């Protein structure tokens, strides 16, 4: 096997700059694009820091009941005795003490820290579920539209335009109570799981179009290539061509768009709660907390800051990681 000198140098460079991947191995090591991307990601300081932060947030959200046990305070417990006559928390910075790390809510006197932990759990769950569903719908419809073209392509394109033209917040605001009423009637006690489900459904209806556009464009660029023709010539079916031939070639942009969609859904969920749809007060969520806190902007600013900073940190970490992922997956991208 003869390597041209240029290739040899390039490979040697990759090998030498890779950290102690295989200390004992001498010579040229072949690596798949996935492995190369993983190496680049591991060497990127921003990616590592934001990745660790994200894992931390996710573990915190998943382990919320555990945190509650250790912390010793539940999200619905009220501490009226720590509030003054006007319902404002006693002490400094919104009542921050050793027992209540982020202070108390004015009025009801619930602990902000544990409510944030549960809010994190709600937001992350909704965002991941919505991102997964929209990605699935978007991939299937986008690939079909791009590969088959014709009237299907025209229809899907038109639906995309239509979805873009609808004001999302207003429609969601109108649709959410309507769906809830359909299932529960005027007086029914709405369970929080149902509220979460409705939110995810609304996101799914409106959110799939961007992934569909992305996938469609990528598929159109690939569909005339020889390997697709070869698959077709050897009798492959539609499913095989789309899922086994085309999709493996475009997973990188899909992964990046997924990682950037999650923070978008976190933001949207908060925005919806903020204008008063979304989840009931029973389910702790970021947007709801900020919305409730705005009334106390002058009297208890700490109450506004703790949820605001937490949601910023979460979305910031996601955005940093998404950017780093894009750089790692696309060797041509420049910083």
């Amino acid at each position, binding site marked *: 096997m003869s390597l041209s000198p240029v290739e040899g140098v390039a490979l040697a460079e990759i090998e030498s700059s890779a950290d102690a991947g295989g200390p004992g191995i001498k010579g040229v090591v072949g690596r798949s694009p996935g492995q190369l991307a993983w190496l680049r990601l591991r060497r990127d300081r921003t990616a590592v820091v934001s990745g660790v932060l994200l894992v931390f947030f996710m573990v915190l959200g998943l382990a919320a009941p555990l945190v509650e046990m250790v912390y010793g305070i539940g999200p619905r417990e009220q501490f009226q005795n720590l509030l003054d006559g006007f319902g404002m928390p006693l002490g400094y910075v919104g009542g921050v003490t050793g027992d209540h790390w982020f202070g108390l809510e004015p009025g009801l006197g619930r602990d902000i820290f544990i409510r944030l932990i549960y809010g994190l759990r709600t937001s992350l769950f909704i965002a991941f579920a919505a991102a997964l569903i929209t990605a699935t719908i978007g991939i299937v419809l986008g690939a079909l539209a791009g590969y088959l073209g014709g009237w299907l392509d025209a229809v899907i394109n038109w639906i995309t335009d239509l979805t873009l*033209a609808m004001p999302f917040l207003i429609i969601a605001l109108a649709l959410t109570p309507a769906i809830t009423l359909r299932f529960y009637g005027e007086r029914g006690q709405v369970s929080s799981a149902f509220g979460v489900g409705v939110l995810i459904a609304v996101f799914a209806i409106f959110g799939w179009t961007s992934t569909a556009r992305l996938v469609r464009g990528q598929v159109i660029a690939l569909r005339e290539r020889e390997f697709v023709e070869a698959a077709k010539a050897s009798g492959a079916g539609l499913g095989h061509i789309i899922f086994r031939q085309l999709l493996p070639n475009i997973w990188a942009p899909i992964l990046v768009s997924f990682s950037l969609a999650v923070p978008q859904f976190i933001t949207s969920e908060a925005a919806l709660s903020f204008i008063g749809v979304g989840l009931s007060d029973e389910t702790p969520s970021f947007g709801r907390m*900020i919305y409730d806190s705005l009334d106390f902007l002058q009297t208890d600013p700490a109450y506004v800051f703790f949820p605001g900073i937490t949601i910023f940190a979460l*979305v*910031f970490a996601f955005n940093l990681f998404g950017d780093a992922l894009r750089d790692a997956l696309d060797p041509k991208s420049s910083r």
Partner: protein
Amino acid sequence: MSRFLIKRLLSATLTLFAVSVLTFLMFFALPRDPVTGMCPKNCNPERLERVRDDLGLNDPLISQYAGYMKGIVTGRDLGSAQGGRCDAPCLGWSYVSNEAVSDTIARVLPVTLSIVIPAAILWLLLGVGLGMISALRRGTWLDRLAIGFSLTGASLQLYFVGAVLLLVFVYNLRLLPVPSYTSLFDNPAKWASGLVLAWVALAFLFSAIYARLSRAQMLETLSEDFVRTARAKGLAKPTVYGRHALRAAITPVVTIAGLDVGGALGGTVITETTFGIQGLGRTAVDAVRSGDLPTIMATVLIAAVFVVLANVLVDLLYAAIDPRVRLR
């Protein structure tokens, strides 16, 4: 060109038609009787029935829709309870605010325009400017500062930024009055001072996206051959960057700007709620809460019109910016 325009406008009309049908179906399919929301307090059954009759809710759905559409195009006669004759862009009568919906819109639309247009100018200048500077000064501290700024802006929430701005400039430093809307033509100074926080908040968050996008585009364009050619034939740097490179780099920015501005004109719900300004977005939210069906219909339709028109405009701008684009 004109053929393209006609084709584009036709498809835009089709989209708007679909939006109107969808909205109509969505709200009339609500299990709640739309009348209960429109009838003021102390409703008795007779009154309810009269309101329902006035609104034509006893007619079949298709003729209701046809009546509504006819009202927009030619105007129509509503019952005496709804203010009688309703002129050409007739959007119906709101029982909640007791006025013609077109009057409500005429009152709140200037508010949203006053928020969005200055904010959009600010965020485009800031975003594209920052993106260009950091692309030209790539790798310097200026570049890093701009990236940090845009990443922070992209991750912040409007209501949080708004809250902080309110706290600092209105409540603590008392530099600005509590945000409110005054007409530009009555008192320009008061108009600006009442809305400047909304502009800054919107511009900060939006410009972040534009800075990132235009930086990436600019970097890509700067490495192209035609930029080198332009430099090699002796053109000055400002001419090359400002005229040759910027023009090629800006097309995707224009697409996103069209969508963003079009969407924002349809109602900046979060901004208006945060700052307590009654524009199109707040009106829509209030209408949904009180079940004010004609107002909901009108706000959704107007929002859709803005988005669709912005899209057509973007296509036309494309042709103006990039001579390679042929409109067919």
